[in-house]
């Protein structure tokens, strides 16, 4: 390619209604994150957005294609899944890796096997485990909250997120979990706003209720079993669901249409497995949170699920 035949595509952004709706649903969470963790988290979101768009533009403009709106969703979800005090350059590395390797190398929008946001997060999680597990800050309180703060310092006592606190057997208040006055990743803390976004998405049909519902079902199922099996060690289902990024993942990541399965039974199995695996990983693995890994693992099974479901359908048709 020479510079002379390089032309910007007619439309720089290709608007996709479903993807934009996910963005609208994410806006309250971004605002809440500023209240809880200060302006730094907002700039983390903006930085990820800029570099996510740039990465996609580098690949897409070369082929005279527009930048898809899906990149907004990917970048925002990616940044909301980070701890609030993560160094900026790590977020940049993560989003570039996620978009380039998780999406563009597979052929761009609609062709990616893995969720690009999760690929990026996984990359920096594996690369910088210390920063990713310690850059938490305790949430702000009061009327203005974080609106007049840049960030809140990482302090050793409140460093633990509810998930690690649960592991240590500390008590947390249920209402804090629900409203989001807890430490954790930027966007995962407020169950209320996530549910609000989820209701909006499902009402507007931008997210599949099957995926979200089955994921929730899987999580509830597994956590009830495990809680009944050892009630002293393992927290009750309601804590399991409200803490960490389980809800955030259920509403915004599992329902991502591209890397999820297309067939209805496939969607049920996929969601249920993601939910169940998340709880299993939380309880039995060395990592406090499991939703990122369970989504990536199940993403790998999506083509198989869709193919098998198609074959079963064809067999049934052949018989009747």
């Amino acid at each position: 390619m020479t510079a002379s035949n390089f032309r910007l595509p007619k439309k720089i952004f290709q608007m996709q209604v479903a993807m934009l709706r996910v963005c609208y649903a994410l806006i309250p969470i971004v605002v809440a994150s500023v209240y809880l963790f200060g302006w730094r988290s907002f700039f983390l979101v903006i930085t990820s957005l800029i570099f996510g768009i740039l990465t996609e533009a580098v690949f897409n403009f070369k082929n005279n294609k527009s930048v898809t709106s899906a990149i907004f969703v990917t970048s925002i979800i990616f940044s909301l899944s980070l701890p609030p005090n993560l160094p900026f350059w790590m977020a940049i590395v993560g989003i570039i890796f996620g978009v380039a390797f998780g999406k563009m190398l597979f052929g761009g929008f609609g062709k990616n096997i893995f969720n690009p946001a999760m690929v990026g997060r996984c990359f920096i999680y594996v690369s910088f485990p210390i920063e990713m597990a310690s850059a938490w800050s305790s949430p702000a309180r009061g009327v203005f909250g974080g609106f007049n703060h840049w960030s809140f310092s990482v302090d050793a006592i409140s460093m633990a997120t509810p998930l690690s606190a649960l592991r240590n057997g500390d008590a947390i208040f249920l209402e804090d979990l629900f409203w989001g006055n807890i430490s954790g990743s930027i966007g995962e803390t407020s169950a209320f706003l996530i549910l609000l976004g989820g209701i909006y998405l499902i009402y507007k049909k931008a997210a599949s209720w099957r995926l979200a519902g089955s994921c929730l079902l899987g999580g509830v199922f597994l956590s009830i079993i495990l809680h009944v099996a050892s009630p002293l060690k393992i927290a009750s289902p309601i804590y399991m669901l409200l803490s960490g990024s389980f809800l955030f993942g259920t509403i915004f990541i599992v329902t991502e249409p591209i890397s999820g399965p297309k067939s209805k039974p496939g969607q049920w199995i996929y969601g249920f497995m993601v939910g169940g695996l998340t709880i299993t990983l939380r309880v039995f693995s060395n990592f406090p949170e499991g939703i990122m890994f369970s989504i990536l693992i199940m993403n790998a099974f999506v083509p198989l699920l869709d193919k098998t479901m198609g074959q079963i359908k064809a067999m049934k048709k052949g018989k009747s």
Partner: protein
Amino acid sequence: MAKTVTQEFTKGLWEEIAPFRLVLGLCPVLGVTTTMENGIGMGLATTFVLVCSNILVSILRKFIPAKVRIACFIVIIATFVTVVELLMQAFAYPLFLKLGVFIPLIVVNCLVLGRAEAFAFKNKLIPSVADGLGMGVGFTLSLGALGAVREILGTGMFLGMSVFGASYEPFAFMVQAPGAFVCLGLMLCGMNIIGSK
């Protein structure tokens, strides 16, 4: 087929450089290249086996019945792998410990078997030596390069020395298995870009 001995040697360095062009022998390429030292050590061990097995296969090519040739190749290769293993235990014990199971695995490295089958079995002694040497040096260079990239990015060190200073945040990802795949893929991509021009 009228290639000179020099050409037989140099083809293994660029045109048919094993891990990148033939995509052969990937197991050690991905497995041991966490540091440049490991990569080069592994490459040299493989080069030794390659040259020696090529020599012996080439000498014996008239005597080995075609039907049982693979078994014969394996016996020849396994002999030299055992030699390498014992030599490394005697003279390079720390490296031997680091490379571990990958040394006996040279026996099943398809690069070694591939050169015996595809080249040494059909060619005379001198070209076979040149071929084995070229392939081996190419293999060593690739492993060294991959090892260097992964070592620098993954630990911030190069041959045990710090490159970026203490403030560097190492990409732990790069020294793990997925880092090897990503790095190899990027190097392949780079070689194809250069090669297609």
